[in-house]
């Protein structure tokens, strides 16, 4: 479980996050949703330590990550897997080397064990026979899958996904969403997904945190979404006719 406590972050005069608190539960896909520019990605970066919050703390299973020393931070980070918006695959390495990278750096596994683990992860994300391809030779959806394989290769306890569906067609988006959800349940990990994709919200939002202008306005599950009673959330969710029709029904 990940707990965040009154996270505040400003860039110059602009307050991007305003005292956000909440919990992300283990074994569930926890979503952070909101319009563009509401601070979702900044919150995610504060949680994983890429940005240091001005105030507040992040706890990974009761371990205070924000105030931890370098060794403790390093230890916690080894339990983190992250899928970036564009995949963030290393251009100079092929698919196999990309997925194997965390094992090379963080473990002392034998070469054979590493290859076995890489093949297992690639198979798990539905990619076989692409080990030697370079990132430039595979599609956007495949890059995301390789990114997921790299994120789970070191058996993380926490999985973070920053807009996993951006730039993907609806069908591939659903595949990626389902993959994230399956992996979360299968490995019983704490997954946090930042998204503004309504298909994802309705499909995999077991626990949802809605951000609006840097503040948390609502928390609940996808089942509660249609009757939240929060105007800003309704404006965000029911933006088009189809969604408004769903609400009416």
């Amino acid at each position, binding site marked *: 479980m990940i707990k965040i406590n009154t996270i505040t972050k400003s860039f110059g005069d602009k307050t991007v996050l305003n005292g956000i608190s909440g919990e992300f539960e283990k074994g569930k896909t926890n979503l952070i949703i909101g319009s563009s520019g509401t601070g979702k990605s900044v919150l995610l*970066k504060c949680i*994983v*330590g*890429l940005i240091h919050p001005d105030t507040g703390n992040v706890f990974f299973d009761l371990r205070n990550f924000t105030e931890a020393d*370098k060794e403790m*931070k*390093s*230890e916690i*980070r*080894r339990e*983190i897997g*992250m899928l*970036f*918006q*564009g995949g*963030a*695959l*290393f*251009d100079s390495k092929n698919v196999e080397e990309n997925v194997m*990278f*965390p094992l*090379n*750096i*963080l473990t002392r596994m034998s070469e054979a064990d590493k290859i076995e683990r890489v093949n297992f992860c690639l198979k798990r994300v539905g990619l076989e026979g692409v080990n030697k391809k370079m990132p430039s030779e595979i599609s956007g959806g495949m890059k995301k899958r390789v990114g997921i394989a790299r994120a789970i290769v070191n058996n993380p306890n926490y999985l*973070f996904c920053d807009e996993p569906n951006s730039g993907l067609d609806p069908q591939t988006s659903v595949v990626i969403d389902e993959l994230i959800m399956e992996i979360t349940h299968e490995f019983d990990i704490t997954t946090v997904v930042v998204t503004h994709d309504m298909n994802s919200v309705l499909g995999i939002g077991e626990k949802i945190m809605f951000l609006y202008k840097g503040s948390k306005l609502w928390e609940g599950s996808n089942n509660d979404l249609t009757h939240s009673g929060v105007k800003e959330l309704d404006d965000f969710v029911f933006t088009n006719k189809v969604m408004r029709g769903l609400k009416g029904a």
Partner: protein
Amino acid sequence: MKGFGRYVIFLGSLFVRRETFKTYYNLTLEECAQIGLKSILLFMLVSTFMGAVTTIQTAANLVSPFVPRFVIAQVVREMTVLELAPTIMAVIFAGKVGSSMAGGLGTMRITEQIDALEVMGINSASYLVLPKIIASLLMYPLLVIVAAVCAIMGGYLVGSLTGALTPTEYVYGIRYTFNPYFISFALTKSFMFAFLISSISSFKGYYTSGGALEVGIASTNAVTTSIIAVLLSDYFLAYLLL
């Protein structure tokens, strides 16, 4: 001053939370191949022509019958060893290797590859930049030696082919009152230039933010700043060591 302070902090960050020796060893070898092997042909080509042109121009200017012809070779030697090989090649090194370092790191930054390393608990600055600096320190002095040899050979060829001076006069001039300290001076300069170019270019690339346009700007800034730093340090080293 703020930028210089960030640069110093950046250099300090290269030596904390390091990875294993084996990791750096492999990365440094890769960088050596990238920096050395991919630059050597350009260095040889430029320096050969540089030596050839210096010979022709010196010969054209030494018209006095009281100055012996072997002085042409002597001038070529001193110019090559003291300035052309370490300093002019540094400008080429900054343009080729420095811009590539800044562009590569800048692209890694905007495509979140550096963030990916940080999330894994890796000191991205140390992991990515330290091997580049070490490889530059190893390869640039070697490239300078190759460039100096090629420039002197270029002068020899052109001097012989054009009849500006005979091969015997050229070899005599090259060896005449040779001061080995100048070689040490040139190598000291090349170490300094290699460090400045690789660290400044990496710094500019590492802190790129924005998109493709900013990566281009970072590359250009890396080359400009590196060249200015090289020229300034060239002046101070000459003032202090000669």
